[in-house]
């Protein structure tokens, strides 16, 4: 049964915490920059209006900031409490970005937060402004190092496996810190936060316009946020394209799940809108090979010809492997050296992974017995097969396939809403330019509804990235079931329930406070 194993429960706990964390963090990051821009206006113009505006958004920021910090520490500790095998297997690489985040970014963010909120009458205007910018920059830097760590899990680079310590060790810091996946992931995520912050500012300001309150405040807030949001969404879409390209190269199974693509072909179309035939996925999960063979992948779909090949490989005729191809192997692909190779089947990868795991055990025995020759042979076997190390823990084809419907629909929700927000910001700026925004009721309602939509979009993106990479904690090297701690399922279930209750209460309190702050409005400053 689903959610009875330690692995499933540990995943659920991490997902719950991460998704909850990700409700608050993007608003903190996005709003931080918008506030810094508003305070810059204040310092440059000397107008109290801008101070009042910045201070109102700071109130919204503060309520979010606290809960974001509270959930962040749980995530950090969970790598040890719930994923202790993982913590050793890659701690040599993964721990460094977390420590750097603390030293370089988090201290900056939390130290200058104190000036930002309590220092208005204690430091000069310029020092205060600098502090506000440093909080925003600190939050972005913090995100960078966390995403370096996350990107490394999806695209391990700059490391070597050390059989003496039975773990991966860093050999190239810059390969880890500046990997193309990390850089793209950072921009994609931070721009998502900018868009979210901008939509929230536009949405709340529109609520005031609808209530015929705070017109100047609302219109100027909308103008700043919409420009900020429009620039961000354009760049976000660009980095989204980069992200899809990287996924195609590094995580082809994730791409196949995003597209519900079971059988690959040259010149693969991109499913713009579609509905999956869930029976096919169910047959795969149930090991029903006949049913899997007979069922069609989609109930209906509208596709853009050759677009997936182009997006994934920059070649309209490129072969994009589907789930079946990735299980059966045998197709041609370009390896990391740029040469063409024939893909291994899952069965071959499992055998290769087991050779690697057994070679590690043999190596250890040989070292203990003082058998240098045996150690050398085992080491070679391990090195030759290490790229498949994680497959050695898997058993059957369903083990390497993520939840296709979840990833497929999340991806579409993210993309469709991404397109919607591009349009939303264009319309917002047009209405503002024409000075119609204060009277346009339908727009104001849409802007308010856009607030929950941007959160759905943001969470959907997270689901694509994280659920799509299953079963791997570290791509190809360590699956989730080999990463968990040696605690009981009941212990994890208990903490899930406790976290869920705590998070629900905190979220309710946060929203209730936020609604009161908004209801009161900037006039209360």
């Amino acid at each position, binding site marked *: 049964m689903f959610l009875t194993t330690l692995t499933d429960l540990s995943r659920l706990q991490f997902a719950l915490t991460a998704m909850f964390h990700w409700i608050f963090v993007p608003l903190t990051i996005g709003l931080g920059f918008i506030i810094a821009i508003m305070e810059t206006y204040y310092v440059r113009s000397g107008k109290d209006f801008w101070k009042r505006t910045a201070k109102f958004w*700071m109130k919204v920021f*503060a*309520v979010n*900031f*606290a*809960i974001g*910090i*509270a*959930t*962040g*520490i749980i995530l950090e*500790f969970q*790598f*040890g*409490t719930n*994923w*202790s*095998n993982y*913590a*050793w297997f890659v*701690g*040599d*690489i*993964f*721990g*460094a970005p*977390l*420590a*750097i985040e*603390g*030293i370089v970014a*988090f*201290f900056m963010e*939390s*130290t200058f937060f*104190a*000036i930002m*909120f*309590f*220092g*208005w009458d*204690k430091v000069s205007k310029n020092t205060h402004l600098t502090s506000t910018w440093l909080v925003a920059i600190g939050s972005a830097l913090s995100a960078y190092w966390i995403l370096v760590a996350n990107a490394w899990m999806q695209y391990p680079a700059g490391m070597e496996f*050390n059989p003496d310590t*039975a*773990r991966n060790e*860093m*050999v190239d*810091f810059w390969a880890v810190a500046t990997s193309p996946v990390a850089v793209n992931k950072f921009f994609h995520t931070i721009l998502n936060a900018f868009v979210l912050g901008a939509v929230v500012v536009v949405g709340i300001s529109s609520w005031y316009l609808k209530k015929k309150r705070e017109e100047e405040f609302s219109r100027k807030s909308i103008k700043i946020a919409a420009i900020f949001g429009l620039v961000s969404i354009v760049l976000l879409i660009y980095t989204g394209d980069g992200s899809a390209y990287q996924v195609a190269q590094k995580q082809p199974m994730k791409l196949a799940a995003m597209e519900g693509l079971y059988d690959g072909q040259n010149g693969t179309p991109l499913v713009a809108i579609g509905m999956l035939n869930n029976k096919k996925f169910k047959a795969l999960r149930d090991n029903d090979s006949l049913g899997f063979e007979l069922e069609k992948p989609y109930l209906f779909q509208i596709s853009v010809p050759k677009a997936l090949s182009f997006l994934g490989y920059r070649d309209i005729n490129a072969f994009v492997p589907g789930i079946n191809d990735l299980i059966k192997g045998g197709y041609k692909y370009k390896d990391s050296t740029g040469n063409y190779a024939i893909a291994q089947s899952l069965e071959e990868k499992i055998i290769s992974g087991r050779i690697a795991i057994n070679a*590690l055990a043999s190596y*250890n025995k040989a070292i203990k017995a003082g058998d240098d020759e045996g150690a050398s042979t085992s080491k070679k076997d391990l090195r030759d097969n290490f790229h498949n190390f994680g497959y050695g823990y898997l058993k059957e084809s369903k083990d390497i396939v993520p939840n296709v419907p979840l990833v497929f629909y999340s991806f579409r929700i993210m993309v469709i809403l991404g397109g919607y927000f591009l349009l939303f910001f264009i319309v917002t700026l047009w209405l503002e330019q024409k000075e119609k925004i204060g009277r346009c009721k339908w727009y104001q309602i849409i802007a308010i509804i856009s607030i929950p939509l941007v959160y759905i979009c943001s969470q959907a993106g997270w689901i694509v990235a994280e659920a799509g990479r299953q079963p791997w904690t570290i791509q190809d090297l360590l699956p989730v079931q*080999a990463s968990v*701690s*040696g*605690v009981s399922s009941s212990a994890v279930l208990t*903490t899930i329930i406790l976290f869920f209750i*705590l998070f629900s209460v905190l979220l309710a*309190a*946060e929203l209730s406070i936020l609604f009161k*702050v908004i209801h*009161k409005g900037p006039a209360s400053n």
Partner: protein
Amino acid sequence: MIYFLQHYWWTIVSLLGALLVALMFVQGGQSLLLGTARNKEEKMLLVNALGHKWELTFTTLVTFGGAVFASFPLYYSTSFGGAYWLWIVILFLFVIQAVSYEYRSKKGNILGYRTYEIFLFLNGMFGSMLIGVAVGTFFTGGSFVMDKMSITETFKPTISYWTNSWHGLEAIAVPFNLLMGIVVFLAARTLGLLYVIMQIDSETLKVKCKSQVKVTGVAFVILFVILLAALFTRTGYSVNPESGFIAPVQYKYFHNMVDTVWPGIMLLTGTVLVLWGLGTNNFSSGKNSFYITAGGIVLAVWSILLCAAFNNTAYFVSNYDIQESLTLYNSSSSLFTLKVMAYVSLLIPAVVVYIAYVWRALTRKQISSEDLNSQDSHKY
């Protein structure tokens, strides 16, 4: 080189741990919310004075966790994954703290200000105490089995297990750990009281805190001396750096203190500073008592933590099989990572400088009710 870096990183981690204990004056101050601060105004002053600093303590805790993960990942894996419940309870206590400052006095906070004050009190009392218990396990060990090669067992590849179902909660029942927990709490509370005296412009609170320091401070010093006596008479475990063989040694921590000299000097200096700090509070104006006492606590805790692992000592002993205990040599990151992190650590002085600047800017003036009601204040 790796020998040096392993010791260097233990020094840094220990310093962060010592700073964390001193910065838990915030937790100590929170423990005054029920009992000492009686009326609404006193509570508001207390929460706001501490509220300007709580994030610094919180960030130090997060950085301490990150630094341990980066430099000694096997400890992170074994202790956090094994002593599951101990760490989860600590986490809960810190999560409820993080929201309580911002939410306590806000309209619409659902739970009412009293609940958030209880959250802050629980964090102040038990958060600091349980951190102390966790530190105590550096000397008393844990009930774990650890074998890195278990990763090759494809059906059950977990490399470390806790051998009892209490998963770390049993550490609270170990007298030494409990004593360590109480001493950490008393240190936090003593500093919390001194901080209130230094930072809050309220005569009634000052009078109450001054009289409480006499009791709490003395209790802290007496129990700290008992803790040292218990530590120095304990059996520790020595590791042979060549073979990795671990063997019990009587009075190991006393030997560590004497053999490595400078932790001993730090401990003595720290103790003198604590006595001086408490003395100036009682017998003179006490203007700098907080800083002197905090400095003393940092030095004393730092030296004790150094003692836990220096001089070839197993710092996290497996009570199941001492040969599986963690030492600086078998639990650290690789030479490359330790080197990279050593370069990163060069940034720490810059961080300290800006923290000092912000600290000074915000503590230059005592906090009064008038300040909190001013137009520009962000009130908790």
